């Protein structure tokens, strides 16, 4: 495989192709017939996925830096480069994106009735934007892609969404834009600092990492970046846009939103927040705040999910809970924690994506998502029930599924540094069973009372094609996570080293007012030195 890839010079053009092929596909879809648009979009995005698979082999597992990196000047006067690269953190995010997009498109065949060309064009544009976010190694370029993903999603929710689609679309847009624009000011601040220090303007992440920042500056910039990413994640209490957007979005929109768009936030934590502001990131107050918010998110979202009559809203809230585990794992600042966080990101992408697809299939059959409207569906649609149950169990985090690996590692990593928080968060896993299983029971088991449910069709061939790879991956990752973990590890080590390097100056008196809420052992000895 490696030989074939080398023969076609894969490493040289693959990343660019992954960003720009979807754009090309978008143009093709726009020029195709209204009826065939969906097929063009599906096959095209499948092709992009096949292409992206090459990354698995082209990627050197033992190396933590940026791979297949390339950089061309884009706006020389500002030092902006068109620079792409992939490492152990972004590799899986890219694969997740290219993997879910064709499935989401295939899953929307029956759902999207009107203006199909525009819809599939926007889906491909969205894919290009998200892949760009994960591959950009220039902060300016990252910001451009980060913002660019908003537009297609805004239209996808706003045009093809449910009853309150416009409200949901604009809320989604304004919330996210609010955070990212403040981040833009932070980026410019970093840029100005770098320009003063280096003498040349640059937005390259590797260069910006060299900029020394005082504790206060780090805290401010951390806040600006963290706000942007926390809204995207979304971290409690910034999550209120999510249930609206998820419920109103059409099935494929929800799938992409849950599977990849939310990951842009936690990815931002790992790629930018921790490396750029290591001092602020391990400040005990900051860590406590982030962790406590994550735990509140986990517990609160679980309780809110438990009382939702609408199955889609229930799943939307589970996103908040799962992403809480990711944030928890990341701010544990341990290898296990961050690895766990990343696996939860993958697992959540698979299981929640699949859940939204399944709910979309239910909706197509019955035109309702009320849990009460179903019951005993498992008897008439056994395949449907099987897929749903496995997915729900993966979502809960049953051992043997991907969810277990991720949540276990995240909690383990958290326990190493913050045992109390880890114990509270563990309760979240139990809550997950508490909200998910009754829903599964009410929909698929119980008595088959309602006559509408008797005629429920089982999964069609197309639907099986969508769900099989998702379910297979959930189980595969659950049983054999090592190939994933070993590819992530070096890159996570790089991030952690960077954080640990900054651990010595972190002890500056100004930075450590001494927080009681902290349990971080690595911050215990406080040596005072001169403040900035």
């Amino acid at each position, binding site marked *: 495989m490696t030989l074939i890839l080398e023969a076609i010079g894969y490493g040289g053009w693959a990343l660019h192709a992954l960003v720009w092929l979807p754009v090309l596909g978008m143009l093709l879809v726009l020029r195709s017939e209204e009826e065939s648009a969906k097929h063009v979009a599906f096959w095209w995005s499948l092709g992009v996925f096949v292409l992206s698979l090459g990354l698995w082999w082209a990627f050197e597992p033992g190396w933590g830096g940026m791979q297949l990196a390339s950089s061309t000047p884009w706006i020389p*006067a500002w030092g902006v480069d068109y620079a792409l690269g992939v490492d152990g953190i972004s590799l899986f995010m890219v694969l997740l994106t290219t993997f879910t997009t064709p499935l989401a498109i295939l899953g929307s065949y029956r759902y999207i009735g009107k203006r199909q060309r525009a819809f599939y064009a926007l889906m491909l544009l969205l894919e290009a934007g998200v892949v760009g976010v994960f591959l950009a190694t220039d902060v300016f370029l990252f910001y451009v892609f980060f913002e660019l993903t908003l537009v297609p999603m805004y239209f996808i929710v*706003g045009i093809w969404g449910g009853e309150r689609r*416009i409200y949901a679309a604009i809320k989604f847009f*304004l919330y996210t834009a609010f955070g990212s624009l403040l981040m*833009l*000011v932070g980026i*410019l601040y970093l840029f*100005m600092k770098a320009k003063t220090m280096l003498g040349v303007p640059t937005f390259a992440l590797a260069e910006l990492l060299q900029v020394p920042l005082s504790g206060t500056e780090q805290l401010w910039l951390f806040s600006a970046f963290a706000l942007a990413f926390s809204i995207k994640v979304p971290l409690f209490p910034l999550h209120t846009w999510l249930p609206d957007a998820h419920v109103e979005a059409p099935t494929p929109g929800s799938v992409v939103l849950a599977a990849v768009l939310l990951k842009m936030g936690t990815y931002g934590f790992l790629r930018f927040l921790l490396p750029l502001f290591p001092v602020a990131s391990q400040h005990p107050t900051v860590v406590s705040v982030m962790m406590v918010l994550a735990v509140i998110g986990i517990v609160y979202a679980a309780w809110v999910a438990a009382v939702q009559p609408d199955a889609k809203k229930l799943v939307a809230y589970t996103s908040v809970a799962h992403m809480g585990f990711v944030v928890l794992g990341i701010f544990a600042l341990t290898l296990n924690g961050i690895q766990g966080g990343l696996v939860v990101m993958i697992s959540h992408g698979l299981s929640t994506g699949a859940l939204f697809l399944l709910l979309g299939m239910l909706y197509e059959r019955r035109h309702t998502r009320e849990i009460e409207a179903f019951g005993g569906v498992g008897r008439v649609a056994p395949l449907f029930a099987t897929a749903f149950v496995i997915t729900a169990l993966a979502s809960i985090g049953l051992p043997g599924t991907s969810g277990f690996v991720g949540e276990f590692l995240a909690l383990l990593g958290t326990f190493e540094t913050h045992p109390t928080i880890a114990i509270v968060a563990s309760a979240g896993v139990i809550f997950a069973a508490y909200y998910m299983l009754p829903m599964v029971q009410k929909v698929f088991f119980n008595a088959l009372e309602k006559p509408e449910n008797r005629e429920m069709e089982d999964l069609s061939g197309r639907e099986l094609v969508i769900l099989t790879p998702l379910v297979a991956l959930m189980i595969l990752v659950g049983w054999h996570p090592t190939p994933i973990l070993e590819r992530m590890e070096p890159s996570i080590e790089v991030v952690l080293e960077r954080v640990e390097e900054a651990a010595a100056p972190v002890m500056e008196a100004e930075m450590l007012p001494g927080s009681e809420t902290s349990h971080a052992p690595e911050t215990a000895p406080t040596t005072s030195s001169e403040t900035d």
Partner: protein
Amino acid sequence: MELDFSRQLHYVWALLPEIILCVWGMGVLIAGVSGPAHRGEDHAVSEDPAFGTGSGLGWVSLVGLLIAAFFNGWLYTLDEVGRGAVVAVDDFRLFANWIFLGGAALSILISFTYVYRNRLQAGEFFSLILFATAGMMFMAGARDLMLLFLGLEVMSIAVYALTAFNRRDRRGAEAGLKYFLLGAFATGFFLYGIALVYGATGSTNIDTIAAVVSGGRAREGFLTLGIALMTIGFAFKVSAVPFHMWTPDVYEGAPAPVTAFMSVGVKAAAFVAFIRVFLVGFESVSDQWYPVLWWLAAITMVGANLMALSQTNVKRMLAYSSVAHAGYLLVAVAAGNETAAAGMLFYLLVYTVMNVGAFAVVIGVAHQGEERLQIEDYSGFGRKRPELAVFLTIFLLSLAGFPGTGGFMGKIYLLQGAAESNLWYLATILVLTTVASYYYYLRVAWYMWMRETTSEDQHDLVVTPLPMKAALIIAVAVVLYLGIFPSSMMEFARAGVEGLGALGGGLLGVHP
């Protein structure tokens, strides 16, 4: 060729584009008066309004702009010796001239059918646009406050007349009167400010003023008062809050192509002159005016964006949006460094193109008249006229400063200028008000794409004749080009402000 201003003839060379425009404008005027429309003959000659009666004068005016543009390019070959002349021949002026000429050309392209359908006097209409453009160019080239005032008046009076141009439209008359009265008042302030500055420094030449002021030889009280009054005059012309009260009414009442023209041209001219007077002439006393501009910028951004949120008339919404953009540009004046000034030039260019583009679609939706300007009238537009709706969406995203469009690059440029002068609070206000602006720009988009038409034939009468199509395609191309490949234009804008500062130095920027 070197310009030697001791010889009168060299003034002609230095002012050739302006002179051409003025002469051309008079020619168009005379041709219009002696044309068939004025003899009371039947108006409708050709079905296609692009080639109907009076439209010939539009094409002729475009040729005039083209010739002026040619000589504007020729001016790059001339070297200015010393800076004692009344008129500047520097890259700053020439870059600004491109903006005015481009804005005027686009405005003429979108006004063909409008002029025809509303039976306006084509000769007067197009010649007034040419005169106003010449006035703007005088303002950009003025190195003397008197020439600046002259340019301001030439521009303003032409625009007052254009505002009230449709005699059959009451709102136009009202807007014209309002604009004229308030504008005359503001001009009074401005002129009085010039007089006081003259009293304080003994000169109206901006470079001499700079030398006197930085030498500490100016009379303090007079100077401060003069600067204050001139600030008011400029603030009125760029429509900064709280001197913006006229803007929504005038923008709503004026014929739509005129609104497009003045929202870009008048603003650009006023800002260019603003930069030259304040950052060159009064640079050394920036501590006096800087706080005022800081607050002007802040309240303009906040006030305009908040007021725009509740507008239901698209023309009014764009009026408040134009006030908001004045706020963003004021940030550049407050920052006052070279990056900010270059950013301002770049932004004015992008703003000209995207705003005229947006107005072009508005005119189309309004059936080339003044009806159907409510936001509800855009319902289902995306379904009926997808290509126009896509264009308008791009212009709105650019106005909102979204990545991929020139508006984004312009905003980043302005933000960088603010960052260089450490104006972090202003930068933060700029981005926060931008979030607010997303709402009202996107609202038009949601009406277009996410709502159904209210009646079946709602958008059947939307016409985009050939010249308007040309303007739209040019505008979209420029907006996207500057959004994706902004580099060369950025360098060009940067070159425009190099050597602009007092006595040939660079702009130092304001250091609060």
